[in-house]
C-alpha cells in the first residue's frame, strides 16, 4: 500500500481539460463513496481516499496498492466519476507517490501551488476536503494524518512567514491603502466619478468593506441613478461634482473622458474648503481622469492604476521571497509525517518486535544463569536453546501472519495494534485539534 496522489491543476492542464473533470460540490459525496468504501472489503478503488476539488484543481489522494495497479485503478476511477474517456485527460495527469505526494499536498495547503501565490482560501478548501472524506468514511488513519500535517503546515506558513501578507490584487491594494489613511470606513463617504463597469466593481468592493455612504456622479444621470440604486447610494448631477468633492473622503474615478476631469486648482480649492481633511483619490481610468499634479497637494493621496499595479507587483515579490521559509516548514512537517508513516510498514515492525523480545530473552537468560550457578556447559546450552526456542515459537505466528497481511488493506491496523500492545517505538506526528477555517 502506498500514498498516491493523482490529478491535474492549472499548471498541468488547460481549462478545457480541467472543466471536463470538474466535480460539482453536490457530487463529491457520491464520488467519495465510489472511491473508498469504509469497510475493508475490497469494494471501491482505494483503501483510503480524499478528494480535493477547487476551481483550479482536481486531486485524488488515495491509499492504493504499490505499483502500476494502484495508479491504474485511480485512472479508471477518474474515468468513471467524470464520464470522460481516459485519453482526453491522461496526458495532463500528474501522479505522485509517498513523500512526493505529501510534499505536494503541503505546498497546495500553503498556497505555493495556487494561481495567486500564498492565497488563503485553499487552506479552508483542504480542511473541507478532509472533513468531507471523514464524514463519508472515505479516509482513514494514514490520509487523515497526512491532511492534518498539511493543514498544520498551512497554518504555520501563514503565521510564521509573510507568504499570505499584503494584498496582491488591485482592489485589495486600494483597500489596504485606505486602511493606512483612515481608521475605518463606516463613517466615510465615497464618491464614484463615472458609472461604468469599473465603477460598479469599485462600489461593490467599498460596500463590502462597510463604507458609510456612496455618491455617484456621471455624465449620464440615468446610469448614475441605476448604480446608486443598486448599492444604496445617492446619484448627483455632473454639475454637483465640485460640491461632492467637499463631502467625499474617498474618490474613485473611472470615466471614459479623453481629458482630465479633476484639475489641480479644483482639488486645491476643495481641500481648502474641506479644512485640509485628507482626500484619498484612486484614478482607474485610462486615459487618466485626474491631473498628476493633484498628487502633490498636501493631504491628497492620489493613485493611478499603475501605482496600484506596482504595489501588487511589490507585494507579490515579497511573497516570493518567503517561499524558501515556507518550504523549510513543509520539509520539517513532512519528515515528521514520514517518520510516523514508515513505522506502519510490516518489515520494520517485525524487526522492532524481534529486537525487543531478544533483549528480554538475553536479560532473563543471564539472570537465570547467575542464580543456577555451577552448571556444566551442556547444561548451559540446554537452558540457552530452551530460551531461544521459546521466543521463536511465540513469535512465529505473529510474524507469519503479519507478513501475510503486508499488502492487505488492513495491515496498518495490525501494525498499529502490535506497536501499541508491545510498546514499540511509535513516532506520532503532532496532531492537535483542527478547526475549520483556522
Amino acid at each position, binding site marked *: 500500500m502506498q500514498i498516491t496522489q493523482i490529478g491535474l491543476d492549472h499548471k498541468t492542464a488547460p481549462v478545457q481539460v480541467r472543466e471536463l473533470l470538474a466535480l460539482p460540490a453536490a457530487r463529491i459525496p457520491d464520488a467519495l463513496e465510489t472511491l473508498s468504501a469504509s469497510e475493508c472489503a475490497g469494494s471501491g478503488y482505494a483503501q483510503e481516499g480524499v478528494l480535493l476539488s477547487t476551481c483550479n484543481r482536481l486531486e485524488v489522494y488515495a491509499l492504493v496498492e504499490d505499483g502500476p495497479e494502484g495508479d491504474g485503478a485511480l485512472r479508471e476511477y477518474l474515468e468513471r466519476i467524470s464520464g470522460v474517456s481516459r485519453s482526453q485527460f491522461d496526458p495532463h495527469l500528474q501522479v505522485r507517490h509517498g513523500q512526493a505526494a505529501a510534499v505536494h499536498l503541503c505546498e497546495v495547503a500553503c498556497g505555493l501551488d495556487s494561481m495567486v501565490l500564498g492565497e488563503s482560501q485553499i487552506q479552508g478548501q483542504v480542511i473541507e476536503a478532509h472533513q468531507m472524506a471523514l464524514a463519508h468514511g472515505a479516509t482513514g488513519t494514514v490520509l487523515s494524518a497526512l491532511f492534518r500535517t498539511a493543514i498544520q503546515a498551512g497554518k504555520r506558513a501563514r503565521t510564521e512567514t509573510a507568504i499570505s501578507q499584503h494584498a496582491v490584487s488591485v482592489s485589495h491594494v486600494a483597500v489596504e491603502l485606505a486602511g493606512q489613511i483612515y*481608521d475605518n470606513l463606516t463613517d466615510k463617504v465615497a464618491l464614484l466619478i463615472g458609472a461604468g463597469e469599473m465603477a460598479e466593481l469599485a462600489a461593490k468592493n467599498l460596500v463590502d468593506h462597510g463604507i458609510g455612504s456612496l455618491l455617484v456622479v456621471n455624465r449620464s444621470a440615468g446610469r448614475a441613478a441605476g448604480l446608486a440604486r443598486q448599492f444604496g447610494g445617492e446619484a448627483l448631477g455632473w454639475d454637483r461634482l465640485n460640491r461632492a468633492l467637499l463631502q467625499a473622503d474617498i474618490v474613485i474615478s473611472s470615466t471614459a473622458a479623453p481629458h482630465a476631469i479633476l484639475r489641480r486648482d479644483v482639488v486645491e480649492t476643495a481641500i481648502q474648503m474641506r*479644512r485640509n481633511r485628507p482626500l484619498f483619490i484612486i484614478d482607474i481610468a485610462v486615459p487618466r481622469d485626474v491631473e498628476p499634479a493633484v498628487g502633490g497637494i498636501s493631504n491628497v*493621496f492620489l*493613485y493611478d492604476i499603475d501605482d496600484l499595479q*506596482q504595489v501588487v*507587483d511589490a507585494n507579490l515579490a515579497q511573497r516570493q521571497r518567503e517561499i524558501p521559509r515556507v518550504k523549510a516548514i513543509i520539509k520539517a512537517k513532512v519528515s515528521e509525517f514520514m517518520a510516523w508513516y514508515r513505522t506502519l510498514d510490516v518489515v520494520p515492525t517485525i524487526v522492532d518486535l524481534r529486537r525487543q523480545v531478544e533483549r528480554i530473552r538475553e536479560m532473563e537468560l543471564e539472570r537465570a544463569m547467575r542464580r543456577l550457578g555451577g552448571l556444566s556447559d551442556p547444561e548451559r546450552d540446554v537452558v540457552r536453546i530452551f530460551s531461544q526456542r521459546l521466543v521463536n515459537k511465540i513469535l512465529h505466528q505473529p510474524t507469519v501472519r503479519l507478513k501475510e497481511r503486508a499488502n492487505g488493506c488492513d495491515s496498518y491496523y495490525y501494525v498499529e495494534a502490535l506497536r501499541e500492545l508491545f510498546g514499540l517505538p511509535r513516532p506520532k506526528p503532532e496532531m492537535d485539534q483542527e478547526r475549520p477555517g483556522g
Partner: protein
Amino acid sequence: MANVVGFFLAALMYGASTLAHVACWIGGSRRCARLSRPSLLAAVSLHGLAIVLRWVEAGYAPFSNAFESFSLYAWGLTVVYLLAGSLRRYAALGVFVTPLALLSILVASVLPTRIEPLVPVLQSHWLPIHVGISFTAYAFSTLAFVAAVAYLHQERALRQPARRSWARQLPSLEALDGLQRRMAVLGLVFMTGAIMSGSMWAEKAWGVVWVWEPQQTASLVTWFIHALYFYLRHSAHWRDRRGAWLLVGGFVSVLVTFVGADLLAPDSHHDFLF
C-alpha cells in the same frame, strides 16, 4: 540601596522590552504583544517600586537630582504610554517609546545614585507637586512627538506605496492625527500647570513669580509651541505634515527645558539638577 537595585533590575526589563519591540517591528509580526508588552509592564512596575522605596529611604520625593530626573522621565513616559496607548491599535508605537525610555534610563544609570540631603530650597511640599506636573507634561509632549514621527513616516510611505515600508504596521493617518491632538492638548494643559506651580513655588521661595532663568524661559517656549500648534490647527488647518513637524519642534523644546537649559546655563535656579 534596595531602590538602586530595583532601578537596575527595571533597567534590564526596559532593555528586554525595547529589544522585543524592535525585533517584532523588524519581524513584521503582530504577535508582538505576547512578549513586548508584559516586559514593559514588568519594567514599569519594578521601576515604580524602586521609586517608592527611594522615597521612603530618602524621606522626601526622589525628584531632586539628575539621576532621579532621568529615572522619573522614563517612568512617566512609559506609564503615560501604557495608559494613553492602552488601545491595541497604538501598540506599534511602542517601538518609538521604548527606546526613548531606555535612553533616559541609560543616562540615569551612569549618574551618581547616592541619596544626598536635600538642599534647603527644595525642602518644600511644592517639590512633588511641581515636578510631578512637569514630568507629566513632558511625557504627553513626548508622546505627541512620537505620534507626529509615526504620522510623518506613514505619510511618506503613502506617497511611495510600492516601496516596502515598516509603516504598514503603524496606525492609520487618521488615528495618528487624533493621537497627536489628544497628547498635545494634555501636554499643553500640564505644561500650563507646571509653569503655574513653578511660579507659585518661586514666589514662596524667592519672593518673585518670574525670573527669566533658562529653564523657566524654555518651559514658556515649549508652552507657546504647543499653543501655536492648536492655533494653527484650528485657524490655518495644519492637520498635515506641518502640524506634525511643529510637534517635533515642541519635543526639541521639551528636551531643552528638561536638560538643555541646565547644561547651557549651569548657574540657573534649577541648577540643583546637575
